[in-house]
């Protein structure tokens, strides 16, 4: 927390125009991330690589995350004045929908400083449908190239200024992006003996149990 928060303060002082946000990780790992905006992302990334205090010269990992539309429920307390003048507190539950987005997560280390804790940068797209663009960090860290292609292939995130943005795992003719949460797999189930519940569900759909008449003839 401290190092990421320190980094955030430092960057805010140095780049007053940039919109930065601390994305906390509530898990035991507590690897908090730093969300960058699109316009200043590459500028800050170059600074983090070049600045002698940070020297983040190694991007070890680029991940895509699909955040689907989710609902958050909040308790809102309001004070209600009754007709006789007495006041009472009323607690209401307010549900609001947070629109989904794609997130690209970069894990950075410094070989020069021999760091063991990663600095985590996050970029988010505007939404999940038509504006799925983030700036590419391949010009800053060359090792991002294939992994950004993978994120493009499996999640459909477009990286501006990527040198060679093509599919990398699926074939070029493939439509859709298979790691998206709303991806529908082709319905080509075939029987297999399995203990997996999800596969058994598909099995029941494709191989309905024999009708009673058939079973009677078998036994």
């Amino acid at each position, binding site marked *: 927390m401290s190092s990421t928060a320190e980094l955030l303060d430092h960057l805010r002082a140095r780049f007053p125009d940039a919109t930065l946000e601390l994305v906390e990780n509530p898990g035991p790992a507590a690897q908090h991330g730093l969300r960058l905006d699109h316009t200043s992302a590459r500028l800050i990334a170059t600074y983090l690589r070049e600045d002698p205090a940070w020297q983040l010269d190694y991007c070890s990992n680029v991940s895509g995350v699909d955040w689907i539309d989710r609902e958050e429920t909040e308790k809102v307390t309001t004070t209600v004045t009754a007709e006789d003048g007495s006041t009472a507190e009323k607690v209401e539950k307010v549900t609001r929908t947070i629109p989904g987005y794609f997130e690209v997560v970069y894990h950075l280390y410094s070989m020069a400083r021999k760091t063991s804790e990663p600095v985590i940068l996050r970029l988010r797209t505007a939404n999940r449908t038509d504006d799925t663009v983030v700036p590419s960090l391949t010009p800053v860290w060359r090792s991002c190239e294939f992994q950004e292609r993978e994120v493009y292939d499996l999640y459909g995130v477009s990286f501006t200024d990527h040198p060679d943005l093509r599919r990398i795992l699926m074939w070029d003719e493939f*439509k859709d992006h298979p790691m998206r949460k709303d991806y529908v797999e082709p319905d080509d189930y075939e029987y*297999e003996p399995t203990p997996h519940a999800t*596969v058994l569900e598909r099995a029941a759909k494709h191989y309905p149990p024999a009708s009673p008449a058939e079973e009677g003839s078998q036994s």
Partner: protein
Amino acid sequence: MSETSDRSSLPPAAPEPFPAAGNISDEEREELRRHGILLTSLEELYNWGRTNSIWPLQFGLACCAIEMIATATARFDIARFGAEIFRPSPRQADLMIVSGTVTKKMAPQVVRLFNQMPEPKYCIAMGACAISGGPFKQGYNVLKGIDRYIPVDIYIPGCPPRPEALLNGLIQLQEKIKTERLKGPATARHLKPDAPSEYPIPEYDAHDLKPPKNPAVWTQNPLPRDQ
């Protein structure tokens, strides 16, 4: 001779003796061999030569390839069975060991390599993935078995199979080659002029390969009603 006693203790390789060797039994032939008379047939000689110089295609697809490489090393030594020359070109190979997961992206290339191999050619499906897709069977990107597009002679189960299993599969293939006939109704596939030597290469489609299987080489198993 120790060789004679060894041979008699083993089960017979072919279920029936070769007719071209005459109507004498294997024991009688061995007896003649002890006296320096080698009685054989062109068919047997031909199969004997092919059996003991199988040249596999040098290509691996996944973790099964590691076991295949181990089979070629000194510890397991596939050279004992005459199959140590892994050829990097399909034009010089006559056995394709499909060692590992065949993704839908790779499947057309595998079929194309098999097409480029000269006859007679054989195919071993090594491991659960090559047989049926294995643990990835219900995924969106893995072929549910290479036998959908090319004929498979030997299936080796395992995940991955140990080198001994691959050697056993190779011996099974050798037994199969030994029983192939040059003439007659049971003529070997590669000697039939109308038998296909090349198989249609599937094309990439929006979600799957097109066609998803070649019905000429693959038929679906019957429904498992007693599950």
